[in-house]
């Protein structure tokens, strides 16, 4: 555990001693803030219009359904596709380029401790970043009365969604010394698993069912609605485990133990 924390601390330091952490958080804050404002403003205009028309249907328009849910489901997941590669690209590519991978792999620590440390370091930055979302959302509690319960599920969903991408991005980063390549490939891969469930629009066979199950978006629906489903939890935890396992295999292959 001590080794894991040492590596995690080192990663976190590296993020905050380079522009990456600030850039990533700034990008996230701006995009998240813009969409949050748009949704909130639209919601305000819409509810006024409804009330002006005689209050019909107005009680059904909740802040949760019209502001928070679209923000999580329609916007933040897409922002993460863009931002997570920026977090994961350096995890292994940087160590390979600078030669520090030799230090890590010749130290008396296991590959798993290094991987877990790196993952936790990236996760800590990601966790800090999504806190920004809740700074915005807390404003809704000041001016309105949204229900807090679905928010817990949505936060958990977003965290798992991001963690799954982090694990896969870390794996992709082991293949190259070039951070830009790692970022581009990660983004392409993330986009692909994001749209995988689109196949159901034109096909209904077993293959499309499997592809749809594999899509990372399919399993976010429940969380976005405020429902924590075991099956979705299992999916995200499995993807995280898979990413860590593939990273371990890839690091093993670096040593020529193929």
């Amino acid at each position, binding site marked *: 555990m*001590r*080794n894991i924390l*040492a*590596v995690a*601390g*080192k990663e976190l*330091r*590296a993020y905050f*001693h*380079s522009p990456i952490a600030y850039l990533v958080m700034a990008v996230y804050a701006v995009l998240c803030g813009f969409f949050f404002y748009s949704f909130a403003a639209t919601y305000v205009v819409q509810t006024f219009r409804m009330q002006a028309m005689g209050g019909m249907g107005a009680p059904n328009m909740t802040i949760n359904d019209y502001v928070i849910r679209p923000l999580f489901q329609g916007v933040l997941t897409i922002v993460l596709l863009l931002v997570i590669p920026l977090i994961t690209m350096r995890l292994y590519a940087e160590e390979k380029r*600078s*030669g*520090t*991978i*030799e*230090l*890590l*792999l*010749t*130290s*008396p*620590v*296991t590959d798993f401790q290094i991987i877990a440390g790196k993952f936790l370091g990236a996760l800590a930055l990601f966790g800090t970043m999504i806190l920004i979302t809740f700074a915005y959302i807390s404003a809704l509690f000041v001016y309105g009365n949204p229900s807090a319960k679905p928010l817990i599920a949505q936060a958990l969903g977003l965290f798992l969604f991001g963690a799954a991408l982090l694990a896969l991005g870390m794996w992709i980063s082991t293949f190259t010394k070039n951070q830009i390549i790692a970022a581009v490939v990660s983004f392409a891969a993330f986009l692909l698993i994001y749209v995988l469930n689109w196949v159901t629009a034109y096909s209904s066979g077993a293959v499309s069912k499997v592809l749809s199950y594999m899509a990372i978006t399919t399993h976010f629906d429940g969380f976005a609605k405020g429902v924590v489903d075991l099956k979705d939890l299992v999916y995200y935890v499995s993807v995280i485990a898979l990413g860590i396992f593939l990273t371990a295999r890839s690091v093993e292959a670096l*040593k*020529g*133990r193929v």
Partner: protein
Amino acid sequence: MIEVENLTKRYGPTLAVSEVSFQVQKGEILGFLGPNGAGKTTTMRIITGFLSPSAGRVRVAGVDVVESPLEAKRHIGYLPENPPVYTDMTVNEYLAFVGRIKGLPRAELKKRVGEVSDKCSITDVQDRQIGKLSKGYRQRVGLAQALIHNPDILILDEPTAGLDPKQIIETRELIKGLAGQHTVILSTHILPEVSKTCQRVVVISKGTVVAMGAPDELTARLQGYGSVLVTVEGPAPDIMSKLGRVPGVNLVEQVEASGARVTVEVHTEKNHEVRSELARAIVESGWGLFELKTGGMSLEDIFLKLTRRDLGEEVPEAETHPAEVQEQGKETGESELTN
């Protein structure tokens, strides 16, 4: 302390290291000598556990590096060719991080960072960012990193590469001072470095060990003859035959020819002074003598010869000469090295 047995490493179809075996005694400094691409780095990386061998075994302090890698790594401090430093950290932060992953207890960490900084004379830069340090300092930070957990064994890959002459001397002294308490393997492609620092040398070429022994003995064997370089203005064939007849000369090789000026290398019996004789022969013939100096086989030459023999090729002799008959005997004497 270190036992390497029949070590082989393949990268796909290419054989990087083939059947390499050697041993290092406790407290000894072993020089690992070879041209670039000879397999020095690969061998060192296998000993440190960074690469896994395709065949053969390595034991450090009695521990097999493949079977119990963590235990083996605790005994080893490793300085790769490029010091593995995080450029965004300060020297102290970096050494503290390395100390932690090398398993130093927290209580000892600060003390050890101070000790190795002292030893490697980097205390004056301890709060500077490593990225802003010169190559010489970075190299010393790399060495401090290798020493931080006070390992029994130090593996140093070209520790003096890229340093200026003063730093090279300092680093050599530092490494020499480490012998006794640490067992050291250091790689280099610089011959004098080996004779100055190492007690024993393994010469490696094309992935195989071509010679092994104490540096003095090895230099003597590798340079089995004296050599004089002569630059003369005159007809090349005449010069070569004339100089070849000087007593004590075994062979004359043309090294370079530009215009009327010819540079030849004269091989002589070992410790046999022929320079005044050569000068006389040249002046008597009425040629212009431009330069006359003792030459030596450079390491590169030795390796070219050794490796060409490995491939079964004949060493190309630039020009032949009557004295070559005598040369034959020496040839066989020298080729014993390859066995």
